[in-house]
């Protein structure tokens, strides 16, 4: 099963997230990660979600999303050059023995320690999901007590933008 990162541009209106999330649960599709926020245009929101499935399932997800009235456009980042990032906060137990090791690992991963306590630190890491998986593995032996992470967000490399892609399509139709 392929994992897909999808951006859904929607009218920024009451209940739109419930519609999108409800379509997934109602039709038995899975959402692995979800991030929602306004775009540069405050009337438009971008829902970035990660889902997994065979091509036929992804085709259904795309088509069913497109049927929702407030959905402006659905983009699957599959097969296009893009960057993906998540942000994770990791709370790690520390003592005199492990503090140095923690700081080393965080430094190597270009993370930040954003809360320092006598018995625990909070680490902030931003990155691709592979990098996040790697640091979690490394910190596990020290004693992770909590992980909170955002949904994944994605953006095309180069000059291409979601809004621009919509404009291009409109021009093509005209």
């Amino acid at each position, binding site marked *: 099963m392929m994992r897909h990162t999808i951006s859904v541009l929607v009218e920024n209106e*009451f*209940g739109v997230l*419930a519609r999108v999330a*409800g379509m997934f649960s*109602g039709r038995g599709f899975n959402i692995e990660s979800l991030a929602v926020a306004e775009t540069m245009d405050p009337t438009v929101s971008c829902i970035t979600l990660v889902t997994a499935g065979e091509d*036929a399932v992804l*085709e*259904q997800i795309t*088509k069913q999303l497109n049927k929702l*009235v407030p959905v402006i456009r659905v983009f699957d980042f599959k097969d296009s050059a893009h960057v993906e990032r998540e942000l994770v906060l990791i709370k790690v137990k520390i003592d005199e023995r492990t503090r140095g090791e923690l700081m080393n690992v965080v430094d190597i991963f270009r993370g930040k320690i954003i809360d320092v306590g006598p018995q625990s630190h909070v680490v902030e890491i931003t990155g691709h999901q592979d990098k996040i998986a790697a640091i979690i593995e490394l910190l596990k032996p020290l004693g992770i007590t909590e992980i909170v992470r955002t949904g994944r967000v994605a953006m095309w490399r180069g000059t291409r933008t979601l809004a621009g892609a919509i404009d291009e399509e409109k021009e093509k139709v005209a």
Partner: protein
Amino acid sequence: MKRMTGAELMLRLLERQGVGTIAGIPGGCNLPLYDALRASRIRHVLARHEQGAGFIAQGMARVTGRPAVCFATSGPGATNLLTAIADAKLDSIPLVAVTGQVPRAMIGTDAFQEIDTYGLTVPITKHNFLVRSAAELLDVVPAAFRIAASGRPGPIVIDVPKDVQNEAVDIDVLPAPGRPDPPPPPRAEDVARAAAMIDAAERPVLLIGAGVVAADAAQTLRRLVDKAALPTATTLLGLGALPHDHPRCLGMVGMHAARSTNMVLEECDLLVGLGIRFDDRATGKAAEFCPGARIVHVDIDASELGKIKTPTLGIRADVGATLRALAAAVAPASRPAWTRRIARLRAEHPLVMRAPDDPLDPYGIIRHTAAVLPPDAIVTTDVGQHQMWAAQAFPCSRPRQWLTSGGLGTMGFGLPAAIGAALAAPGRPVVCFSGDGSLLMNVQELATAAEENVDVKVVLLNNAHLGLVRQHQELFFGGRYHASRFHAEPDFPAIARGFGVRAWDLGAVVDPRATLAEALAAPGPGLVNVPIDAAENVYPMVPPGGANRDMIGGELHATAC
């Protein structure tokens, strides 16, 4: 500039949409709407349960093809509507349900008769609105009608808080009424490819569904069928799109199809699906449906293409426009070998009706009713055995003649839908085939029928059972019957009379034929009780989950000996 309340504005906008009749029930949170309705030229039909109001509106919409409107109050009024809304979603019926809601300041406080109508109806509507100001109605109402009727039709909910109904608003100009978007035409290359596939096929079959009815494409369909000699099967909701007596009409496909119809689809080398969604009751086990066929699938809803069966050619377009283009593009053909083969299958494996002349036989009562009715009559059904017997045996000759709950399969649909049909088509008789299980699920609407004096006759196939449940228990649960027999058998004629509806009992008369004819000819609402043998099953039957080739019962030879 004119000052009016949100409720007055709503009614003004509904009038401009051409709404002539609204079915509904008033309550605390939609009283301002009813106050405005009183002053409006729109007629109101007072249902006795909101589900009845929803199905009355559905009956109007199914007969006219235009969005119909129902009103309900907040809380239980809205929850009672849900089944009728969900039914409209699954059968793609344009419905606009306007619900009252508690005042904005009380939303979220668990106020009296407050329920999250918006949240409840997200999954069962095409779209829904919670109106936050009276001025918003200027956008919301036209949008609701546009969305309900555009593309694949569907139900819309407009939830209006009571204080929005009362809010005064200054109106300069009213917006243009919402009209359906122009339907997408097919691409020329797709039409050419589909026509070439039809021309090249040796054993093509058309399978037509509700989309052909929704597109008002029956005439165009007939041109294509005649020109290219295309045998045509229908889904449950496609019945009537091609007249039953058309030589190419194979009737309904699927779980209770004539054996020959499923056999023809088993043998076809090209299936052209028009406005269908490959429902499991039609396809049986989808992977084994039309096993040797290439598939052309035409639907206005892109998500239907490839949802169940991957087509060789999927065309996302208006079925009507596609049929017009195809009718012009295909080569004339007569297909003598395929025609002969089908004639042979139909002769050897027809639909077997046990006693079509006996008015107390399930098929007999349906055939006798059909024989007495004028050709412009409208038929509704409830859900169960009687529905399938009627689908098999009633001679449907026109689109929008046959109103049945296909997707959701809602018992209780038939009577209120018949009332709606009669309201929308005055002067045309309406018959509702029902069962004793189904009728009780909205029996209160007999009062509405009496009050409106609509020309609706309920023909009640009464076997004192949930007959299709009994049949499933007999065939698939080793005859272990449970909860499918009604031990208390209500006196349906007495119930009807109690509601002010005339009634006849074919089990208590010497000449049932004459009594049936008398009942159907009588003006106004009526009920005809028809005692049916509880052991009667609907055959043939494809077991749930089975392939359509594996039919139980209904063999010609079985009844000959």
